[in-house]
């Protein structure tokens, strides 16, 4: 090989290496999107959330969203998503890879409360903007990361779901003297039951807890739990079950008359109200972890979201899809407000931000502007004459009625009689 050839080869190699090491083009912003793509939570949660991410990111990049989101990109920069499976034994390592190897500007994801408990401290340690879009445990900013700088959550906590569920029972005049709970045995289920039972103690002084069931997540078989509930003859059965567990409980509980004998509250029941319409008895109280899905208020954005999602995926969006859209629109609002898509710009703008999602207004009102609150709603299930699931007697609750004020710990706020709550 001649000297000229060698110089040329070396130069070409160096140029190629330099090109590989260069940061991403200035008009592209990499986002890690983490949801369940396998395992039991993939079907009802992870995939609908990923579908929504695909749809909304495409629309953001095209500038095809309804106003005020009709400018292309995040402050003009195109989103390049990297999808990661949350169903992993090494969630923290996956997060580190997104940050250190893939060089994402932000990570948006996490459905499971356990995932969020693991990732929030990691986000603070690695100083990486992380937007939790779904998980519900109030522990994240009350116990795990009490002074967040890099972690945000654009969905309200389980406290909102359960305070509203208790209020709905009272507002609809349901007999609530004997109360039972069946919730999964981890942070989400435990916190949900804690907030619901504490709320019932405040709102219904006669309410007595007759049994508290805590099967493991993904158990699928609830024969013993259902018998235990039936033997205690409760007026109300509360469950924050989600996904396949909730569907299995509906099938087994409905077959054995639990839903006829007691008023059953499914705080996350919305994902099954169409697929199991014939198994959910009329009168079951259904929540959607916010005013999502069938509980979403009318708006141009909601109309676009439902129509575009159904056209692309052949089914209507359920609440995980809504929450993903809500998170992405929050990030877009922050970037557009800041005029830049860099981590620092988005952090500064997202703290305390208010924006409109397909489910209405979202306010980053808690945890120093890092935790969202929003209005919520509950409804009562009714099978229509043409065999479809619908919700009647929908009651909406202001965000300030069912969420604690800034600086208050959820359970202390409930136990203090919802001090400062502003209800219509």
């Amino acid at each position, binding site marked *: 090989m001649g000297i000229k050839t060698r110089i040329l080869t070396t130069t070409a190699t160096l140029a190629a290496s330099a090109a590989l090491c260069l940061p991403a083009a200035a008009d592209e912003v990499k986002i890690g999107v983490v949801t369940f793509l396998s395992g039991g939570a993939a079907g009802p949660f992870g995939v609908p959330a990923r579908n929504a991410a695909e749809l909304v990111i495409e629309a953001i990049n095209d500038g095809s969203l309804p106003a005020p989101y009709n400018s292309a990109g995040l402050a003009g920069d195109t989103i390049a998503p990297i999808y990661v499976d949350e169903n992993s034994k090494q969630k923290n390592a996956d997060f580190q890879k997104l940050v250190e190897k893939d060089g994402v500007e932000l990570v948006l994801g996490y459905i499971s409360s356990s995932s969020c408990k693991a990732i929030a401290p990691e986000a603070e340690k690695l100083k990486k903007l992380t937007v939790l879009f779904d998980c519900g445990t109030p522990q994240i900013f009350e116990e795990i990361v009490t002074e967040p700088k890099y972690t945000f959550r654009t969905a309200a906590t389980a406290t909102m779901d359960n305070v509203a569920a208790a209020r709905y029972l009272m507002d609809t005049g349901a007999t609530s003297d004997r109360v039972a709970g069946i919730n999964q045995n981890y942070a989400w289920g435990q916190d949900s039951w804690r907030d619901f039972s504490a709320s019932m103690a405040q709102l219904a002084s006669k309410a007595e807890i007759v049994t508290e069931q805590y099967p493991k997540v993904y158990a*699928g078989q609830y024969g013993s739990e259902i018998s235990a509930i039936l033997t205690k003859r409760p007026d109300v059965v509360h469950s924050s079950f989600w996904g396949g567990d909730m569907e299995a409980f509906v099938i087994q509980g409905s077959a054995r008359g639990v839903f006829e004998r007691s008023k059953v509250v499914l705080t996350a029941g919305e994902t099954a109200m169409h697929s199991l319409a014939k198994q959910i008895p009329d009168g079951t109280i259904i929540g959607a972890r916010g005013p999502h899905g069938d509980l979403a208020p009318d708006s141009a954005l909601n109309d676009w979201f439902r129509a575009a999602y159904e056209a692309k995926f052949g089914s209507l969006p359920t609440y995980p899809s809504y929450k993903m859209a809500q998170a992405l629109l929050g990030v877009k609002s922050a970037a557009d407000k800041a005029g830049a898509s860099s981590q620092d710009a988005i952090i500064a703008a997202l703290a305390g931000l208010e924006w409109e999602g397909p489910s209405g207004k979202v306010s980053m009102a808690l945890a120093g502007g890092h935790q969202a609150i929003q209005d919520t709603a509950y409804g009562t299930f009714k099978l229509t004459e043409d065999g479809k699931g619908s919700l009647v007697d929908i009651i909406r609750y202001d965000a300030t009625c069912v969420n604690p004020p800034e600086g208050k710990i959820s359970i202390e706020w409930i136990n203090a009689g919802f001090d400062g709550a502003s209800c219509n």
Partner: protein
Amino acid sequence: MLTAVAIAVDGLGFAAWLFLSSVGLTLIYGVMRILNIAHGGFYALGAYASAWAIGLYMQTGQPVALAFLIIPVMAVLAGTVAGLLIERGVLRFMYGRDEVLMVLVTYALFLILEDVTKLIWGTDSYVAWQPAYALGTIDIMGIPYTGYKFMIIGVAVVCGGALYWGLSHTRVGKLLLVVIEDREVAGSLGINVTRFFTVTFLVGATLGALGGALTAPEISVVPGIGAEIIVMAFAVIVIGGMGSIPGAVIGALIVGLARATSVHLYPPAELFSIYLVMAAVLAVKPYGLFALAEGRKI
């Protein structure tokens, strides 16, 4: 009294399901000395195949009675096809290898089956509730239990009885007991051990698929159900003694009753109770209650 009766009925129902879901695992271990982690994959395949086929059938508007026939048909189909592919395609090349290595091999097969299931049926949940509702309910002291649950108890009794009778009263069964006792001696007596391995694996895989297929109408069939059952099935056969069919019966009954007792009397310890019983049994009988005695070879 009501609680005691409920514990007994719930414990029996759960035990029947556990037995059906774990007996194939213990049969394969007894004959082949393979702790078949892929058993969870057979369970999931059976559940998906059954739920999918029942769903299609019910859309035709035909009576639900025939759906009960779909359950064993899909279990046999899923179990034999997947079992044959795995045994002939992979395991036969690995016979005689270290048991730990076989655990890793079957774990890899389990992961492959999980992905195959996802490729065929996607990530959406499947529900096939019609058979679970069709048999109505039976009231016991004012507590309704589904007729379907009693049908599962009946199927478990029939399966257990058939296995017992087959092993102790048929020529093939007696030959199989020789293979279980000592495969080298069995081979030297002219028994075609490899053929017994193939047949046993197919029967074990079909029993795993049957466990899933029978469970499908009671649950929402979702990705990951195979991983859940393998842990529970493992606890059952460890308690009963790995490789022992009577052990699987007793193991399932112990776990079922322990769990039901905990759920009724102290719900927070529901999961703990199963492993507490397992630890207690292993502390006294380290190889399980009905472990086969193994002679020391010199």
